[in-house]
Each structure stands twice: as C-alpha cells, then as structure tokens.
C-alpha cells in the first residue's frame, strides 16, 4: 500500500506544478479555431503564455479579460463580455474557452451566468462561436485538473445530448495531458490500423505540432473540430487514457450513453497489450502485422535495455497520471522508485503508484528525497537539483524549455515504450562514472564514519 505523505511545508520550494487554468487553456488549444481566454488579470495570462511559448516554441493564442482594480471591486462581467465580443470580432474563433483564475474565483464571480447572459444578449454577434467555461482557480489543482475540466466543459457545452445512433467504427478518445503531440499522432495511427475512426479530444497533434502555416492565424489551426465535439455522442465507444479523464468520460456517458473504458497508462508492454486487446475487441479486427512487429521490437528492447535499469534508484516528480505512467514503466524494468513526488492528493491513481510512498510537494522535496538516486525524472526545472546533486535528469512533462522537440518524443504504445527504454539507457551510459581506486576500496568506505566522528574535534 502506498502511503501518501501530505505537504506540511508553508513555502513551496521550486514548484513542481503549473497552474490549473494553464491546463485548461492547454486543452482548449487542442481544438481547431480555438481561443482560450483567461478571466483574470493580465499577468495570469502572460505568465502562462510565456511558459507555453518556451515549451512549444510556437505562437500561442491566449487572451485575457485584463481585470483591473476597479472591476475587481465592482465585478468582472463587463470585462468578460467585452473580451468575448472583441475576440469574436478580431479573431473569429470557433471556440472561446474561458478559464477562470484565482482572482475572479476569490471574488466569487458567477461566471456561468455571466456567460449565459452574454450569449443571450449577443445571439447574432456570437453565431458560429461556442463559448464554454472551465472553473479553474489557480489555488486548486494543477495542469491535469484544468485539462480535464476544460474537456468536461466542452462536452457539457457543445456535445449534443441524448441517445444517438451509434456509428460502430467511431471511437471517442479522451487522452490525458501527459500525452505528447507525437503520442497523439501515433495513437491515431494505431486506432486507424484497426479500421476504426478515432475522434480525439483534445487533439494537440493538430494544433501544437509545430507546423508553418501559409498565412497568419490568430486562433489555433488544427485540432478537434467543434463539429466533431458536437457529434461525439454517435461514437460506439469511448476510450479514456489517464485517470484524470474519467470525469469527462462520465459526463459524456451521462449525456449520450456512450460507454467508456479507462486505461490508466499506455506505456509498458502489458498496458499496451491491454489497449490493443480493447481495440481488437471493439473493432472485431485481428491485430495488424505492423503492430505485432512493434510488439516484438519492444520485447527485444526490454531484453537489451534491462541491464541498465536493474537495481537503479529513480526519483520522479510529476503530475499523478504521469507519475503513474513513468513509475510503472521504471518498476517494470526492475528499477526502484526511490522518491515519488506529485502535485495533488486528489487523484485515485496515486494508490497504484509502485512506490512505498508518494510525497505531495515540490522540486525542493524531490531534491531532498533524491539524494543517492541514479536518475531524476521531472520537467526542465529539475535541472538545478540535477546539477547540485550530480544526478542526471530525464526531462518529462511540462514545461520543457531547455530542450527542443519534446512534443515530438514518443512515450506511449509499443514504440514509445521502446524509445523510452533507449532514452533512459542512453542517459545512464552517458553518465557512467569511471571506476576509481578510492570508490572501490572497502576499507576506506568502512572507515569513513570513524574518521568523520573524530576529525572535527580532535584535529587542532
């Protein structure tokens, strides 16, 4: 049984998490023609925007209601209305995704009714643009929660409710935020190889995959279309990837009756086997030769790679589902999870993390707990800890701002697991310490405590 150690510190030291509205905006960015809108002060948006840009190296559409002192006191509805109308006129988005921030939530704004009023008041002006709301105060949750809330908001606000005629080959997929662009692309290929038609929500592979469009676009270009979200109820099956996406799937099921199955991770041989079995069962099709080949390649990678993993101590800091994804991956290779740090204790997945305990905390906790580990696994901000501890860092999750191409790194299915094995094994090989006489001298090792005890006082 995993023990969840609550955070007892007052000051977060080197934060691990990014805020909840950022997660919501991230999900909206996976929709075609979308414009995420932070309802808060300018800074909320600007910080999130900068972090997105540093991570994706892309122009990111993200707007703000720019709350100031006066409307913080008198109410932000006017600013929200103005922002929505301005965005509609200037960028003609198909979707405006409103993410609340701590500022307006603390004030206690009734944003839902504000938005309903705006829609009612401007029916004609807003024709062709959906406006949805995700309540995502910064003081609660982190990226995963924001992401899931945004997806739930889209399903609730856009998807046509009621039982629909099911299209037997149509599959709705709700991926967690820990999937990269490459992951989503690969996931689609895999599903299509079974003759199925996947609707992926959100689909960051269409919008954040780093292409160069032939014109200047102010909204997202590419991703799930609003029309596809509207027709999600005609899917024969919904597949959920990551525990944090269970809630949106439940909502879809409640609205339309589409059945869902939750797969907590798609990394590791057995997890992928399970997914492939589901696809095979849903489609009634045999597993394609190409997929079998990939499986065999992964088997070989497991054999070749395990020498580098056995007995290694791994320290991971990540959001709950990604922590689970990576911890099970490492444990499955024979490594020991020496330290597991995550952002929130709200996720049920934490109980399944293959570690003795999971610390709710920050990168300061990781640094304190990771001494003696062989590898740090977290986002780019782990680099200082890595340097101070002299332990190599494997960059995962968000943000990764000091390496290019993180979105094109595959981490799921047979191929992604194979790539992860190689990446980790290569980090270990690149950081091998040459043996030294001192390190191998057992007398020296044994005598160390005595020397330490005597030295400070006896030598004057």
């Amino acid at each position, binding site marked *: 049984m995993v023990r969840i150690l609550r955070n007892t510190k007052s000051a977060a030291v080197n934060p691990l998490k990014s805020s909840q509205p950022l997660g919501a905006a991230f999900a909206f960015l996976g929709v075609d023609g979308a414009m995420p809108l932070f309802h808060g002060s300018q800074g909320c948006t600007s910080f999130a925007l900068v972090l997105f840009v540093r991570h994706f190296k892309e122009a990111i559409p993200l707007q703000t209601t720019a709350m100031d002192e006066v409307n913080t006191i008198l109410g932000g509805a006017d600013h929200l209305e103005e922002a929505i109308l301005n965005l509609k006129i200037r960028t003609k988005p198909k979707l405006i995704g409103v993410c609340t921030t701590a500022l307006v939530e603390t004030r206690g704004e009734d944003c839902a009714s504000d938005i309903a009023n705006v829609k009612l008041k401007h029916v004609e002006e807003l024709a062709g643009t959906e406006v949805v709301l995700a309540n995502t105060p910064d003081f609660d949750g982190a990226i995963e929660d924001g992401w899931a809330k945004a997806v739930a908001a889209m399903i609730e606000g856009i998807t046509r409710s009621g039982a629909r005629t*099911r299209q*037997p080959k149509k599959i709705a997929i709700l991926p967690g935020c820990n999937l990269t662009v490459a992951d989503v692309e690969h996931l689609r290929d895999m599903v299509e190889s079974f003759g199925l038609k996947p609707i992926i929500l959100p689909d960051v592979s269409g919008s954040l995959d780093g292409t160069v469009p032939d014109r200047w676009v102010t909204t997202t270009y590419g991703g799930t279309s609003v029309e596809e979200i509207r027709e999600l109820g005609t899917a*024969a*099956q919904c597949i959920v990837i990551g525990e944090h996406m269970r809630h949106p799937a439940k909502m879809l*099921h409640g609205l339309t*009756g589409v*059945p*869902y*199955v*939750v*797969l907590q991770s798609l990394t*590791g*041989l*057995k*997890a992928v*086997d*399970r997914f*492939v*079995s*589901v696809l*095979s*069962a*849903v489609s*009634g099709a*045999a*597993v394609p030769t190409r997929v*079998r080949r990939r*499986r065999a390649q992964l*088997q*070989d990678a*497991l*054999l*070749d790679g*395990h*020498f580098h*993993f*056995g*007995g290694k101590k791994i320290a991971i800091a990540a959001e709950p589902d990604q922590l689970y994804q990576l911890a099970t991956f490492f*444990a*499955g*290779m*024979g490594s020991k999870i020496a330290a597991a740090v995550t952002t929130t204790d709200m996720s049920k997945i934490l109980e*399944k993390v293959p570690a003795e305990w999971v610390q709710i905390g920050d990168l300061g906790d990781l640094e304190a707990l990771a001494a003696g580990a062989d590898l740090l696994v977290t986002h780019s901000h782990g680099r200082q800890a890595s340097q101070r501890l002299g332990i190599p860092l494997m960059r995962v999750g968000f943000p990764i701002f000091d390496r290019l191409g993180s979105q094109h790194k595959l981490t799921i299915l047979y191929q992604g697991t194979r790539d992860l094995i190689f990446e980790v094994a290569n980090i270990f090989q690149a950081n091998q310490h*040459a*043996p*030294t*006489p001192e*390190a*191998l*001298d*057992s*007398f*020296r090792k044994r005598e160390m405590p005595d020397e330490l005890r005597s030295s400070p006082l006896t030598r004057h």
Partner: protein
Amino acid sequence: MTPLSAKIQDVFDEPACDKNRSKDAKARKEGCSKPLTPGAAAGGCAFDGAKIVLQPITDVAHLVHAPLACEGNSWDNRGAASSGPTLWRTSFTTDLTELDVVMGQGERKLFKAIRQIKETYAPPAIFVYSTCVTALIGDDIDAVCRRAAEKFGLAVVPINAPGLAGSKNLGNKLAAEALLDHVIGMVEPDDAGPYDINILGEFNLSGEFWLVKPLLDRLGIRVRACIPGDARYIDVASAHRARAAMMVCSSALINLARKMEERWDIPFFEGSFYGITDTSEALRKLAELLVRKGADAEILDRTDTLIAEQEAIAWKKLEAYRRRLQGKRVLLNTGGVKSWSVVHALMEIGMEIVGTSVKKSTVEDKERIKRILKDENHVFEQMAARDLYAMLSEGKADIMLSGGRTQFIALKAKTPWLDINQERQHPYAGYDGMVELVRQIDLAIHNPIWGQVREPAPWDCQPAVKDDLASTKNGTGTVNALDEFAGATAQRLGER
C-alpha cells in the same frame, strides 16, 4: 626460420602449461595452433591478443602500424580502468593507404608517426604493433623502432604479432615476449623491498583490481607491477625486482611468469581473485612466497587474520541473497571455468549448477567439474548455438553466465544473462566482487521484464473473450462488458 616463427615455436612449447605437459611428445611438437576452419572460426587474431595484453598499460602510446581496419575497428573497446594517465585510450595508427603500400612508404610513415606522437604527447614509451599487411610487405618495424628510440631518446618497442601469425592466445604470448625482450629489466628501481610482488595477467576490468589492492596494502604487500592492468611503463620496466608473482589469467601470460622466474628468480603461482576461497588462497600463497624469499614470517599470521575477518564479512553479505537465490539454476558457458571458487560460492548460497562448458579446461579441471556436478551429462565441450537456445528456451536454467558472444542466445531465449567476460560493466574480483556478482545475478534473475517478455500477446490466446464481446457490442451493456473485459485482460496480465 624467421625470428617470428622461431618465437612462435618457442611460446608453443611452454613447459609451465598444464595442457602442454599433458600432451605426448608428438602432440607437443605440433603446438597449440590448431588450424582454423574457414567459415567456422571465431575469436580474435594474434594482433588482437597482443594488443589486449599490452593496451592497459596506461601511459604508453600504442601505435598500430596498419591500414585502418586493425585499429580503426577495434579501438577503445575494453573496459580496463586507469587511476591516472588516459593516453592508452587514445588511438594511434599509421592508417596505411594503397599508395603507401604500393610505393613502400610504410616504414617512413611509421617513423614520422612516432615522431609526431613523441612531439605531441611525450609519452615515456611507444609500443609499435605490426599487423598482417605491414608484415606482408616486409616493413622492418624492429629497425624503425631501434632508429626512432635512438633519435628521439625514448623507449620504442616493436610488438611482432601480426594477425596472420595465429590466434588471440598466441598474440597474448607474443606480447609477453615483447615485454621480456624490450621492457622488463630496462629500469632499475631504487626502492625495491622484501614485500614487492607482481600480478601478471590482471587486466583491472571495471577497476576490479582495486577491490583487491587494499587487501594487499593492509598486509604491507606492495604491487611492484600489475601487468597490464592500470600499469605505468616504469612499473613494467622495473618489474624484475619483485620477490614473488601471482599469475591470474593462466593461458594469457604463462610464458611471462615462467621466464621471469628463470631470469630473475621470481617464483610464481597460478591463482584467482574470483570467489571467496580463491581470494583467500591467493593472499595466503603470496605471503608464503614472500616469506620463502626472505620476508618476515609474521606476515603469515596477519594474512590469516585478515582473511578470517574479510571472509566473515563477505559470507554475511552473501547470506542475505540465499533466500532469493536458493534453488536457482545456473548455466556456465565460458571458455573454461576460470574459477572454481565462484562455483563454490554460488553453490554455497544454494544455487545449482546445471551445466558448464569445458572447452578450455585442463584434465584436472574436468575431473573437478565431475566431482562437483555429479551428473556428467551437464558437462559439455562446446554447445552449438542452436542447442544452447533450445536448452534455455525450455527453461532448463534460470540464468546463464557467459561472455558477450552468447549473450543474444540467452536473451532471444528470454533467459536472464550476466556478462562475466571482458565487456562486463561490474567489478567481480575479491571478496566485495563476489558479493557484487551475486547481487548482479539476483538483479538479472528477478528483473520484472522476464514476466513481460515471456507472456504471449493476449489477443493470440483468448478467442473466447472476442466472442463474448461481439455479442455485447451493440447494446448499452457494452460499458460493463468492456470494462470487465479490459479488467479481466489486465488482471490476467497481472497489472493491478
């Protein structure tokens, strides 16, 4: 007879070699050079063998006189460790081109190469290796080395072991001859003492000799030269003033040990640092030889005390693994079991030896194997890859210990494998090394990937589930059916 073929004849008639001694006069005359079977030969050439033996001498520039392949395809490929100089890992070759060969520019190029190295790196010595092509075109590396040594005032040592001369083992011995002819005895040490020893044939792979050296330090025994592991040129050049020697890897440098005994009266014994009892035995014998050569006899008691203390620590550490490894079956597939004491230690913690090859073992070795294994069927001369694969596939062993060459037979048969040859990553010598070996065996056997790779793909073995699912696909019951199905799949795979 050319000087090279005379040398080869000489090293093949090795009186100190058990295997050679057990042959009759006629067989002995034929030497060890079994003609290789084209299309079915494996293993390195004489150049490879010579370079393996000499390359770990760390402050020497090793210059290979050859077209690119000999050095270009083989450099920086061994895991010996250095506590200081890194020059030995820098690769030097004359990289002969077609024009050099045709125009007879080899010797000139070699001479210039020596000068370049001397000017750029200023090493205490340069070892020059002849190879097939340069031997064939008749480059006189002895003459070039002699001239260069005079001109540049440093040791330039010709190593005459071209690949076409024979096997890797022969190359080992030719390298030893080169040391005897050109290096050992060249420098007179000013600090020779009664506790000086040589360790011969120890390569310090993964730094493993550093697991042993502290033991010797404790006893006040000084390693005059460890040849070649982590050696400096000057150590080797003054090795003739040691009082005793231990020969670690017998087949490689036996001629070196015997001739040093003949020339400089340095008695030697053959021992091993692999395994607990062998390590103790080696320490004891070193002390005995030193006493025989005039050292104070009190060292014997100190040695016994140290051994008792260290063995106790090691056995205690090993005991922790008994529960996890008891009854696990080990297949040893090395050229010849280098150390019986490894086998002894593995059996001591409850592991079972289910087979071993005796390809390079002597007659006595074979007898010993029979006594330990009881079942003679488990002893094999050499197993064909196909048979080995079949044996492992059938799950007849829990782990195979071998060299890199048979690695993939084990892995493709989905069987844990541990490298106990020269490419290995971990130090296994001495008391701590034995514990490390067992730790690595434990890690390999218990790695969770074995469960994963051995499991067949779930969709290949359960048609029943597919049928079940087909019937629930249209109804609203799908959510439960699928959840149940996926759950069942996951459960069967043991994910939760």
